[in-house]
């Protein structure tokens, strides 16, 4: 850890909320590259406090090993349970996200608007403006979601690489097939 990492750690601690790389760079006055390096070095840190990093947003959280003790001193706002529809939607967004509502409906074959509202309300997903379509939105995972799964980055998801590879293969095959027909 160097001085830059100390600064990032101090900002995250003082504000106590998830922050994007960009926000951290703005607030600290560090360059994008310095911020990135500082975050990488904070992730190495051992202790009771760990850094969750979804590649875009980071947040300080209490290490999973301490969960049993923390449960006795903190209250959770929401019940732990989550339904099948919620899990399927989370899986789609975690492995294939960010996704729009219609992309999620396409995969699930049902209208997901209520499921999405509940997931956003619980802070497990976040709505962000679509980079290309005005007045349209994408859903992406939050550090809260990773925290619930007990992991500090998306690559630690179950079978992450395998599923990503399968998705790429499926998509490539679909695109080739549909391209053949339109030619």
């Amino acid at each position, binding site marked *: 850890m160097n001085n830059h990492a100390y600064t990032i750690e101090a900002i995250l601690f003082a504000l106590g909320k998830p922050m994007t790389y960009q926000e951290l760079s703005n607030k600290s006055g560090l360059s994008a590259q310095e911020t990135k390096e500082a975050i990488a070095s904070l992730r190495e840190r051992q202790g009771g406090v760990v850094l969750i990093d979804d590649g875009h947003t980071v947040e*300080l959280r209490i290490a999973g090993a301490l969960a049993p003790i923390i449960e006795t001193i903190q209250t959770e706002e929401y019940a732990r349970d989550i339904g099948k529809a919620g899990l399927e939607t989370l899986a789609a967004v975690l492995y294939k996200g960010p996704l729009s509502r219609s992309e999620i409906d396409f995969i699930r074959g049902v209208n997901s608007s209520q499921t999405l509202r509940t997931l956003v309300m619980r802070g497990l997903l976040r709505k962000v403006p679509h980079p290309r379509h005005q007045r349209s939105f994408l859903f992406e995972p939050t550090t809260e979601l990773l925290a619930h799964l007990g992991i500090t980055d998306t690559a630690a*998801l179950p079978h992450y690489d395998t599923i990503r590879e399968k998705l790429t293969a499926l998509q490539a095959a679909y695109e080739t097939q549909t391209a053949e027909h339109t030619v």
Partner: protein
Amino acid sequence: MGAPIVKTPIYEGPLDLLLELIEKRKLLINDLSLASVTDEYIARLNAMEAVPIEETAHFVSLAATLLLIKSRSLLPLLSLSDEESKDIKELEYRLALHQLFKESARDLGKQWEQAAVLYEGTPPELPPFFLPDAAITPTSLYEAALILIEEFPKTESLPSVAVQKIISIEEAVEQLSQRVATALRLSFRDITATTETDRKIVRHGLIVHFLALLELVKQGIIRATQEGNGDITLESDTVSTPSYE
């Protein structure tokens, strides 16, 4: 204060039902397996009662694509338009994605239950201060409350797009029946030209059966459309969910 408790229906949607039928037979996702589960899918669809009209539209729309696949498997003579071929490929793709995410959702569910949660910290307390914002006035709060009310999700409504879809599916099934009948007449000419007809007769028996099935589907669609007497309102992303944090 937990989130609302909700019940789970038997099928979550048409893709779920279709996947269940394919997995039950331990089949891979392709034209052949889809054709082989078409009859059962339609039987299950007909047996369903009290499906919300919007869901019915999705179930029926998928049935139309399955019928197309089945027609094609019975009658290779039946030529498909580019759009129809695309529909079929799209269904296979959606089904493969759905299968993949259902599997991963199961693993995710296990992790969700077993994981040691990484809990939030509490940032250090600051000395108490009062820092209002000039934007906070009775009027601005009233306006903000109106926005909350306006952006609250409305009661579930049938999107007009789905209604149009049911109507066009009805037409599509009508057309499909005609195309199957025409293709059938054409291949009858083939039969008279050959001597080895046994296998083909069996095949034609199948097709007649299939035409009867199409007729049943048509009736089912009409029943479904007639059920839609409720209010029809438009639904969109901007109405149903607020757009900011």
